[in-house]
């Protein structure tokens, strides 16, 4: 990102907006508290730019994660005025005169300020065997496995997940039951299930009370997904697959 301070100085006298930021400092706060900051209301500033202004100029002790600032690294998911959002892609001006309330993603243990613990999610991600499973001899590294654009299209959408975890935060099932495998992990399993090159089977991990059958189809995961992955669809599709497989034991997928 460009250095913003200079532009801010040039626009001195501009309006400000109130940001109320959740602070949790272990050893100091027993539970999260809000701290208010006034930041310049620049028309092209995202909520993340506001946080960076706080960190750089007002309070160096504020902690949060961010990196690419172009909506693809998945680091900067937070709760903004009650909604799970990528803060790099959410403009301050969306909130009129403010205040803008920034909290950590709901449903996760809070490590510090706006930083949540996502190790549980990483374990879930591994558990669905998210890699291409092949049987028999590998092809030599001189030729690719053929895949037509239609076959690619069949799973492409589920391969777009950036692991930002907005879907977990928006999912009441996950928030009530942290053991629920959850939207992104199941969508990723479907990304490989529907890949014409994959020969694996993930029925054992997906056909579980805590996996696809835990989903009550609230549909919020799909609504908050910034990459249009549609995890709710992925889950419902696997429910149908799993149900058919239970009835028709010879059918696969």
């Amino acid at each position: 990102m460009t250095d913003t301070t200079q532009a801010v100085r040039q626009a001195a006298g501009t309006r400000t907006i109130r940001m109320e930021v959740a602070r949790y400092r272990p050893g100091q706060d027993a539970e999260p508290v809000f701290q208010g900051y006034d930041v310049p209301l620049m028309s092209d500033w995202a909520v993340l730019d506001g946080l960076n202004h706080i960190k750089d100029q007002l309070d160096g002790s504020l902690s949060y994660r961010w990196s690419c600032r172009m909506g693809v690294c998945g680091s900067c998911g937070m709760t903004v005025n009650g909604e799970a959002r990528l803060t790099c892609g959410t403009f301050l001006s969306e909130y009129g005169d403010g205040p803008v309330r920034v909290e950590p993603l709901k449903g996760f243990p809070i490590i510090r300020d706006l930083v949540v613990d996502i190790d549980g999610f990483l374990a879930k991600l591994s558990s669905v065997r998210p890699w291409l499973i092949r049987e028999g001899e590998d092809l030599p590294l001189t030729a690719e496995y053929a895949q037509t654009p239609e076959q690619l299209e069949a799973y492409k959408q589920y391969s777009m997940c950036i692991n930002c975890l907005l879907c977990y935060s928006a999912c009441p099932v996950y928030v009530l039951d942290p053991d629920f495998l959850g939207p992104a992990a199941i969508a990723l399993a479907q990304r490989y299930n529907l890949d014409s090159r994959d020969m694996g089977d993930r029925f054992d991990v997906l056909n579980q009370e805590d996996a696809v059958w835990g989903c009550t189809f609230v549909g919020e995961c799909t609504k908050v997904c910034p990459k249009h992955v549609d995890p709710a669809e992925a889950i419902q599709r696997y429910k149908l697959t799993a149900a058919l497989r239970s009835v028709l034991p010879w059918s696969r997928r």
Partner: protein
Amino acid sequence: MIDVLIVGGGGAGLRAAVAVAETDPALKVAVVSKVYPMRSHTVSAEGGAAGVIAPGDTLDEHCYDTISGGDWLCDQDAVEAFVAEAPKELIQLEHWGCPWSRESDGRVAVRPFGGMKKMRTWYAADKTGFHLLHTLFQTTLKYQDIIRYDEWYVTKLLVDDGRVHGVVATEIRTGRIETIPARTVILATGGCGRVFPFTTNAAVKTGDGMALAYREGAPLKDMEFVQYHPTGLPFTGILITEAARAEGGWLINKDGYRYLQDYDLGKPTPTPRLRSMELGPRDRLSQAFVHEQRQGRTVDTPYGPVVYLDLRHLGEAKIDARIPFVRELCRSYQNLDPATDLIPVRPVVHYMMGGVHTDLHGATPIAGLYAAGETACVSINGANRLGSNSLPEILVFGRRAGIAAAAFAKEHREAEPPAVRSQGEDERRRLERAREGGRPRNGRGERIADLRERMQHTLEGAAGIYRTGDVLAKAVDTLAELRERAEEARMEDSSTAFNTELINLLELRSMLEIAQTIAACALNREESRGAHQRTDFSARDDAAFLAHSLVHRAPDGTPSVGLLPVTITRWPPGERVYGRD
């Protein structure tokens, strides 16, 4: 004891990890990364990855494009190895599940790219880096013995008697400081774009790996070669991929004129011509922008002058099929639609051609220490990298470094020397002191952000697209002074829990080391070549400077620059010709 410890969990680091795991499953391999691996900056690469696969293309042509693109500063033996292995690596990624875009018959599709004479750029729509990184990360999950230190920040390499013995790292979440002994270390921390104020690089690109090696005496190479990508969005610096031009986009000035035709880049054609006009190399396109600006033919915005990238004639369907991410980025971050609007763009710092000096196997002059990817300089990129060479580079040299480190670790089984323990203890005390700096909220010292901004503007002013000797000389001094001031920077956070201010301070100190080497190398190279353009030495000077810059850190912290000959195999230096044939 870890056999191979990899610093950095992006494309190069993960490829190295798999290479080690496949070489010998008994070897203990660990990946230490300051972010979760799938957050690494590889994720942001858009356009594609070059590899010779199309009928009618040859390895020699890829070599020639790369070497001429790099203004003959590439080591040609390295380029030949790279070009030969790139297609295999891309097919390997395909076998691991990477969703490469396809032809209708199921084969992998290739697209044209800047500076390339043939269509050889593999792509996954315009999220190639994203798919590549996630495929690699998900594949590493298969190797459950790979140890991951996620969100750990390496602060020091333990080196004794010219041999690496591990690292000191801090767990960001808890503030715990640990010595991690290792037989070999591979640096794969990526680039350092954040030393400049306006960059496509993510917040994490602070040159940590380069600084770690440099501080322990390993030389950095060709640090003056900083690539400006011609098409970044103003303010955010978000990159609009070269693929937008490869698919037929035009660069126009404020008069709607395709100005590149005035800069010896060929004549405008309605459809893209390879190695011509908008498909010229990045250095030449960024330099043309500066000339347009000087002649008053750019458009002023609050974030500086811009020209326009025009995609409107491509139509909605083609944009959605080939470069959907460009449309998504323009809509979300610039509030415009490339199907109907012009995209304002300006050159933006994008890539570091220089890095830790290594051989063809990623080995640095410190025994057991390797580097791969943007952190390293082998060098295949010379004075200017061609678009779509960096993704195959991280794969080819990530794998090579992994194999070389595995072999080294198997041969060197001795225990660590006692000196290493005391180095680790010293480092722990140094870090604790830095954190304690925030103890009383005393308000002393300068803000980290202010020092960072000063550094960025100093470097931009001196080592931007065009450079002059006296400004560079002044910048070297200013940066040295800033380095001292950074030792006394103000800290407001003394917590051990996820203390990002401490990490920002350590990153700033790394960046200041790197910034100094960039200015020093740029000052020393009294010629113009590729991305390094001196207004006071405007011609290429092969007699004196057909050589790499090699910069060591003197004991007092100042950079000392020397030269190292370039390896020429089959392509003698010639003129760089674009748009004429």
